[in-house]
Structure formats: C-alpha cells, structure tokens
C-alpha cells in the first residue's frame, strides 16, 4: 500500500538525486564561454519547466472553480500558484548566477528574462489581490477570474513575442520560446529529461502537502 501511494514521491526524489550526481559527474561538451557552467542547464531550465507546470495546474483549478465553486479547488489553485512562484524564483536565482558568469552581469535585456519577470510580477499581484479580500467565496471567485485573465495574456507574451524578437542571447533561439533542445548533446539529454520529470514530481508533492496544511489551518480557524 505504501509503495502504491507514495511510489511516485520516491521516484521523484531518486530522479532529482540522479540528476544531481550524474549531472555533476558526466562529461559535458566544452563550449566557448560556457564551459563547465553548462551543467547549470539541468537545474536552471528544469526550474522553469516546473514553474510552468504548476502555473498550468493553478489555471486548471481556477477554471474548474468557476464552473463548480468548491473551496478545495480554490485552495488547490492558490497553492499551485505558490509552489510555481517558488520554483520561478529559484529559476530566476539560478539564471542570474549563470548569467553573471557567462554574460558578465546578472540581468540583461532579453525577451526570456522580461517574460519571466512579468510572470512573477503577475502572480505577486494575484497574491496581493487575494490578501486584500476578506470574504472567502468572493476571494476565490475574483482571484480565479484574475488568474485566468492574466495567464492567457501571459501566454501570448511568452509564446509569441520571443519568437518575433530579432535576437536573444539565450541559446538555441530564433523561433523557440523554451529551449533549443534540438541542439542539446544526447548525453546531456539523459540527465536533463529525468531532472525535469523529477522536479515536477517533487513540486507536486510539495503542492499536496501545502494543500493539506492550508485545509487544516482553515478548519482550525473555523473553530
């Protein structure tokens, strides 16, 4: 029973552990300027994938809340947004570290960076909107509406604009908003994909724990 219910958590943990150990020890292609720092790709890019997955989860629960307003859906949506924000912040931090080594400064004017910063700002606005409404039902409804509105417009921003930018200093660009996976070394793929899957599993785990925590807190406050 334990394995059946918790197996995916163990797999997630093992995948992340694998990506850390193998990611730091395998041979990587020696590219000019980047050199060994290419290993950050395993950790930096998987943060963004995890953030996107969690924000998409939040969107799904927001839509589902509007169709059928149940409090637990609202909790699921906001906790997914919180976990997504946390991973987005980590993505920003690892990216700035990396940029400082390869591009010479932590922040450069690049469509990817602008998109990421806007996404994080939007979710900060979402949290502030939630905290400024007292009524539970109203808070859930209005923040779900804002989440959907903001996410769809953001999708245009992140999905369309970088494709039109003439140049981006992110590698593998010219058309691809995410990552030039085609140009990725096959050995690195063996680490990169498990890292993405592992981190998403870990994020889902954190999300489930946070949902339980918030539900308990709500029950206590109702006493």
């Amino acid at each position, binding site marked *: 029973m334990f394995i059946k219910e918790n197996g995916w958590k163990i797999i997630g943990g093992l995948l992340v552990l694998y990506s850390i150990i193998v990611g730091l020890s395998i041979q990587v292609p020696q590219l000019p300027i980047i050199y060994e720092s290419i290993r950050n790709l395993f950790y930096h890019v998987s943060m963004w994938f995890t953030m996107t997955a969690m924000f998409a989860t939040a969107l799904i629960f927001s839509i589902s809340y509007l169709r059928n307003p149940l409090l637990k859906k609202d909790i699921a949506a906001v906790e997914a947004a919180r976990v997504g924000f946390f991973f987005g912040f980590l993505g920003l931090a690892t990216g700035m570290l990396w940029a400082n080594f390869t591009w010479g400064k932590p922040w450069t004017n690049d469509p990817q960076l602008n998109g990421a910063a806007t996404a994080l700002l939007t979710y900060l*606005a979402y949290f502030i909107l939630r905290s400024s409404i007292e009524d539970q039902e109203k808070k859930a409804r209005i923040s779900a509406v804002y989440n959907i*509105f903001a996410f769809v417009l953001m999708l245009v921003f992140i999905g369309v604009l970088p494709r039109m930018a003439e140049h981006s200093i992110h590698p593998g660009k010219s058309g691809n908003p995410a990552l030039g996976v085609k140009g990725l070394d096959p050995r690195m793929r063996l680490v990169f994909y498990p890292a993405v899957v592992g981190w998403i599993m870990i994020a889902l785990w954190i999300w489930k724990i946070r949902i339980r925590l918030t539900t308990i807190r709500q029950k206590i406050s109702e006493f």
Partner: protein
Amino acid sequence: MKYVFWLIHRDVLLELRQPHVLSGIFLHTLGSVWIAYLAFKGMVPANTWNGLIWIILLFSAIHASQRAFGGDSMGRRLYYYTLANPRHIILAKIIYNTLLILFLSIITSSVFILFNGNAIVLPARFIIILLLGSTGLGGILTFTSAIAAQELRNFSLMSILSLPIVAPLLLLLINLSASTLQPMNTQPIVGMLMALLVLDSLSIAMAWVLFPYLWKE
C-alpha cells in the same frame, strides 16, 4: 447591440454631468507632460521621447479607467444588474473607455509634441498604433478596473493588477512606435501589428467570457 449603445449613451451622459472629473483627468495628463518637459528641458533624444510618451499615455489611461467601475455606487450597480446583461455592460464599458483613452492619448500626444518636439516621421502609422493601443489598453484596463472595484479597501489595487498584464502590450506599442521615428526601418512591422491585434481581441474576448463571473454577487 441596442443595449450596448444605450449603455454607452448613459456613460457619456453621466460623464457630461460631472465635467470636473473629466477635466481632472486631462489636467493630470497635462501635468505629467509638463513634468517630463521640465525634467528633460525640452531636449529629448528620439529613443527616450518614445519611451516617455508611452509611459505618460499608460499612466493617464490607468487613471482614466480607474473610474470605469469604481465610479458607480453599489446601489447603482445592483440596479444595472437587474436591468442589463453583464456582457452588454462590459462591452459598453470597454468601448466607452477605448474612446476615452483614444481621445486622451491624441490630446496628450499633441501637447507632448508641442513641448518636447516632434520625433515622428510617419504620422499616419503613429495614429494607427495609437488606435490599436487604445483598444488594447481599453480592454485590459477596463477589466482590471472591474476586478479592483470589487474590493474597495485597497486603492492601489488597480495599478498593481494592471501593470504586469499591460507590460507586454506596452512593450509591443513602444517597439511599434519606435518604427515611426525613422523613415528607413527594417523591423518586422507586420508581425508586431498582428501580435497587437491578437492581444487586443484576446483581451476583449477574455473580458467577455469572464465578466459574468465577476458580476454576480
């Protein structure tokens, strides 16, 4: 459609009944242009000119849209709720706000040009960009105003909510309008115009779909 026109009509009537509110918005915009002139002493490089005018236009648009829903009292909102379809209401508000923002931005641009000099080489294109930009701003800002109006405790909520969502639109507008500043340009205008149209129609479509959920109390 008849209801939408009726609702726009009553928005215009209400506005004309309180001329001081409208003149307050115009004065606020004129004041920002004047401050910009003082800060730069009238010598604005073309790039800065472009950024400056759009920032002023954005903030006056936010200022103008703030009253789209915040201006109506609770009782009046309840009265409309019993009378009209929410989708008609949001459509009417968006159209009215777009016209207001367009009017405001034409006046602001004229005064801005008067003080800071004219950097535009292709005026027709600039006016088209103003038109499309006002539509997008009208759509996004009217909807965020509707969200912010639900909660009266936080006055800065409107700008907090709208700034991150408006950022992509503003970036597009600034890039597009930069192309009107030089006669020879190689920028991909058509693609950006298409993206602007997509953003405009998407913001209005989303407002159309989501507004009924905000309206029911």
